[in-house]
């Protein structure tokens, strides 16, 4: 339990006597009570304990202030309104008491005053609450997704191993088995280091086949992420040795749902894929790894690795992660891994040239994609809050200027400047606190709405339990105090040190003070500048996003249904039986479901997959000791190209005649032709594929394979006809609505093979939409905030101009009386407002131009100084500002000269 600095500071402001007699022993009790609570509370209870403790101490301080006031009252010291700060300080002790008493008194006074002006108070509080609420809601999401640690013990020590090919710049998380084994033996930075891979498996022999999320893992994984065995045991070292009996650990949920929480489950055997495995244990509930998984892991099987690195280093792939040793961070781990990568490059130049391994904190890899949009949103709501603050600041300024006479009277009666400023500060505090309360209430609702709107394809950890907790509350308190400080500073400008004598002499004639007027103008200017900045930022991002949405992936997504299937491995052990099935299936699907084209492919485009294969011309082998460059890998049937309507530039696509024992063939994308066969045609050339050669029989168009933002990269296609797998994805093109034929397609497949496992069935359009769903969502919010900002800025400009018109009523009346036309008056007012807006526009434009570079990484196919976005945003804000000025200007022009003069 530690006292926060502000708590100590506040406590030290208490009168000495109260501090010693009441505060110190009460604080000791509080501390002991908190510690006792902590000792008995679980992990959940401990979270936020420090925040609760400091809150309790704050309450203690408030109680002590009450005591101090009570004491002061009885000694009749507080009865007079005489200001000690002005009449001379009666000593430090007294002053402290005074601060305390004054604050309480002034807060109550402020609350009473605000109650008498419900319209002003409501407008102010609602404007601010909008800003605070939006900030709290977005912060709650940021807190849950980015700031909250992952659900593993000491999660910040967990790191993932990644790999970068320095020649192509491609980053991958999976690493070659040979490299893993050598790294595991040589590395000195991980306390535990384990391989893993995740996917799905089929359990058969338990009635209907069950498709479950499977995790293959080294024995250290489960203990490292805090999993325990509720029945039996977890994986052991011996399970992962070559030749060990196959075992499996069940996930808790699978055990309860599919095995009815059978107590005698340990020792039973189940068939997973093609292997019989003995169940050795059941893991504790809530086992999720990797953390982005939406569901609990169903089964955990050991990854069996050879004891020494195999000669063919890339005979298999695994993911790797581990817990960093104490005192080692990701940067130091990366330094060590770099040395090892260079060592291995020297030893195995053929396989490891350019390969660099590095460590990334697990949390970063999990939140990777969501980080930038979220911080962007936080920035945007921050700007909304600033604009809301500026609006409220304007209202307060106008009000303060209207109260100058009151202030002058009070100053003349002996109140010090400090006391008057204190009064304004108190009012700001009360307003901010109210806005904070309303904002939190609104945010509670907004958070629920926000989370329900997040597209299901966004699987950020922590998203499920976004809420208003201690951290979020602390953030709100911080924001509220910040707004109060801003207003206080603004309104304090209007209280003049000289006592504002002329306000007393001629109350009706005083125009607003120079400082006040300047502050109001500065606020409007700042508001306009902020609105322009937000609009330009949002505009740039939205434009690049619309480019992204309309980007040509190189194939047609509309009208294509994709179905993930898995055939029972036992019945389809032979290649021939699999080939026969796919042939029958494609024929039946075409006949029965009216398909235009049907094909199979292993990699579904736009799902982030970047599997690669080395590319080497047979007639120009790379020099000995060097590694050929990597290109994208895909295994596809001839129908795949038809279904995706990929253009065939030359040659042909695969056909059933390409099955073994026909000669090996491949298809390449046109960028391979450009890059490796400059000035000649690729078709007819031979490439190295493993130990054999294959002939290029076709060249197809480039596609954006991993995601829409990826530039098209070289890809090589292998005939699915030659090596059809048991699990693949079918790509089915129909002339009509792809989603509509899904049930019929599934039925056709089931009729052909009753034991087939049908996985995800979706359309390529959906795959494409899902691949950008997170961004779409974040950007819709960004657009919303930009509109709110614009509206708030318009209200701000309108408010100030309306006030200006009121202030200048007398002058306008005189002008009208002297013969000014209505147009003159409108022009007069619009010019004044326009000047402020123009300065704001210029400032906003300049700042955006300077800051736009920081957005560059998020832009796609849009220049950071895109003239149309800049021009459009400026135009919109300028038009809004002119309209906001025009309304009060017209009102001014309609004034009746004689009445205006009399009223003034």
């Amino acid at each position, binding site marked *: 339990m530690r006292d926060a600095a502000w708590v100590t500071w506040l406590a030290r402001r208490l009168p000495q006597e109260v501090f010693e007699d*009441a505060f110190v*022993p009460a604080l*000791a*009790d509080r501390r002991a009570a908190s*510690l*006792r609570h902590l*000792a008995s509370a679980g992990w959940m209870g401990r979270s936020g304990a420090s925040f609760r403790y400091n809150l309790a101490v704050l309450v203690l301080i408030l*109680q002590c202030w009450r005591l101090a006031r009570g004491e002061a009252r009885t000694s009749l010291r507080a009865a007079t309104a005489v200001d000690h700060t002005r009449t001379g300080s009666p000593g430090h002790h007294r002053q402290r008491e005074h601060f305390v008493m004054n604050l309480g008194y002034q807060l109550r006074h402020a609350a009473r005053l605000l109650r008498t002006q419900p319209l002003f108070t409501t407008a102010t509080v609602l404007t601010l609450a909008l800003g605070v609420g939006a900030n709290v809601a977005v912060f709650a999401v940021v807190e849950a997704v980015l700031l909250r640690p992952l659900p593993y013990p000491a999660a910040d020590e967990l790191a993932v191993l990644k790999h970068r090919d320095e020649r192509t710049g491609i980053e991958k998380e999976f690493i070659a088995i040979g490299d893993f084994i050598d790294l595991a033996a040589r590395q000195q930075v991980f306390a535990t280091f384990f391989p893993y891979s995740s996917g799905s498996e089929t359990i058969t022999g338990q009635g209907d086949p069950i498709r479950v999320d499977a995790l293959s893992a080294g024995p250290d994984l489960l203990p490292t992420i805090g999993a325990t065995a509720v029945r039996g045991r977890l994986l052991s070292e011996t399970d992962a040795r070559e030749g060990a009996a196959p075992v499996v650990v069940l996930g808790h949920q699978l055990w309860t749902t599919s095995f009815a929480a059978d107590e005698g489950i340990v020792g039973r055997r189940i068939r997973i894929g093609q292997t019989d495995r003995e169940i050795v244990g059941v893991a504790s509930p809530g086992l999720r790894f990797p953390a982005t998984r939406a569901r609990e892991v169903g089964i955990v099987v050991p990854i069996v690795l050879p004891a020494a690195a195999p000669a063919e280093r890339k005979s298999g792939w695994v993911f790797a992660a581990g817990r960093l040793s104490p005192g080692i961070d990701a940067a130091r781990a990366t330094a060590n891994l770099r040395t090892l990568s260079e060592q291995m490059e020297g030893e195995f130049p053929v396989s490891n040239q350019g390969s660099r391994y590095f460590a990334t904190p697990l949390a970063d890899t999990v939140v990777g994609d969501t980080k930038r949009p979220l911080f962007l949103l936080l920035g945007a709501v921050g700007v909304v809050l600033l604009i809301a603050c500026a609006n409220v600041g304007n209202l307060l300024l106008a009000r303060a200027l209207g109260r100058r006479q009151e202030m002058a009277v009070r100053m003349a009666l002996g109140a010090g400047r400090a006391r008057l400023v204190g009064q304004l500060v108190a009012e700001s505090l009360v307003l901010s606190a109210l806005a904070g309360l309303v904002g939190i209430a609104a945010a509670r609702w907004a958070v629920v709405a926000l989370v329900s709107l997040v597209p299901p394809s966004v699987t950020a950890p922590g998203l499920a339990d976004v809420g208003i907790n201690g951290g979020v509350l602390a953030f709100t308190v911080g924001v509220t105090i910040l707004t109060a400080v801003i207003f206080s500073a603004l309104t304090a400008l209007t209280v003049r040190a000289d006592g504002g004598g002329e306000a007393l002499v001629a109350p009706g004639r005083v125009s607003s003070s120079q400082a006040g007027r300047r502050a109001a103008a500065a606020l409007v200017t700042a508001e306009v500048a902020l609105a322009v900045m937000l609009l330009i930022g949002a505009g740039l991002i939205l434009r690049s996003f619309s480019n992204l949405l309309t980007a040509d992936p190189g194939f047609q997504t509309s009208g294509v249904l994709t179905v993930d299937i898995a055939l029972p491995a036992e019945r389809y052990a032979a290649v021939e039986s699999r080939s026969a099935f796919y042939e029958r299936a494609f024929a039946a699907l075409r006949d029965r479901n009216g398909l235009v084209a049907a094909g199979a492919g292993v990699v579904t485009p736009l799902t982030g997959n970047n599997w690669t294969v080395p590319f080497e011309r047979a007639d120009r082998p790379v020099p000995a000791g060097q590694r050929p460059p990597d290109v994208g890998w895909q295994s596809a049937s001839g129908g795949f190209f038809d279904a995706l309507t990929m253009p065939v530039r030359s040659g042909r696509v695969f056909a059933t005649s390409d099955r073994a024992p026909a000669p090996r063939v491949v298809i390449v994308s046109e960028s391979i032709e450009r890059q490796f066969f400059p000035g000649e045609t690729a078709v007819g050339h031979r490439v190295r594929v493993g130990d054999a050669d294959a002939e290029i029989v076709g060249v197809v168009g480039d596609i954006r394979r991993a995601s829409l933002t990826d530039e098209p990269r070289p890809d090589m296609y292998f005939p699915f006809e030659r090596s059809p797998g048991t699990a693949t994805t079918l790509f089915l093109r129909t002339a009509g609505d792809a989603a509509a034929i899904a049930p019929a397609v599934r039925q056709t497949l089931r009729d052909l093979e009753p034991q087939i496992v049908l996985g995800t069935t979706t359309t390529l359009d959906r795959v494409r939409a899902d691949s950008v769903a997170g961004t779409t969502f974040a950007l819709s919010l960004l657009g919303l905030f930009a509109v709110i900002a614009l509206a708030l800025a318009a209200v701000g400009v309108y408010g100030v101009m309306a006030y200006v018109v009121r202030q200048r009523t007398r002058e306008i009346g005189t002008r009208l009386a002297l013969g000014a036309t209505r147009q003159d008056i409108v022009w007069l007012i619009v010019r004044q407002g326009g000047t402020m807006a123009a300065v704001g526009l210029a400032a906003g434009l300049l700042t955006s131009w300077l800051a736009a570079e920081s957005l560059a990484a998020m832009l796609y196919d849009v220049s950071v100084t895109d003239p149309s976005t800049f021009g459009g945003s400026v135009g919109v804000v300028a038009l809004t500002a002119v309209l906001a000025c025009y309304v009060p200007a017209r009102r001014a022009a309609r004034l009746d000269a004689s009445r205006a003069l009399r009223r003034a």
Partner: protein
Amino acid sequence: MRDRLPPLTHLQFAVLGTMLDTERAGRDVRDAIARFGVKRSAPAFYQMMARLERDKLVEGWYEQITVGDQAVTERRYRLRPAGRKLWDATRAFYERASLAATRERWSDA
């Protein structure tokens, strides 16, 4: 002899009464008087105790205790002879007063 009203308030009487036989932690005293329905914030309670100390009725000191593995302090109190004397006198007053009241009621009957 004329019977004077004792200078102790009911609350002070109750507080001193909790410490007749033993010294106590402030927290315990506060819990004990809470049972009489007296609700005082911790600062208000300790301010009252400080006044009793100033009037030399109780003696207070800080003592270190450990909670879990952390050392914290707590304020402890014991009755001073003057406090004891005043409490006894107050109790005697109430006894006499109640006796007198009973007698009067019987004589009225």
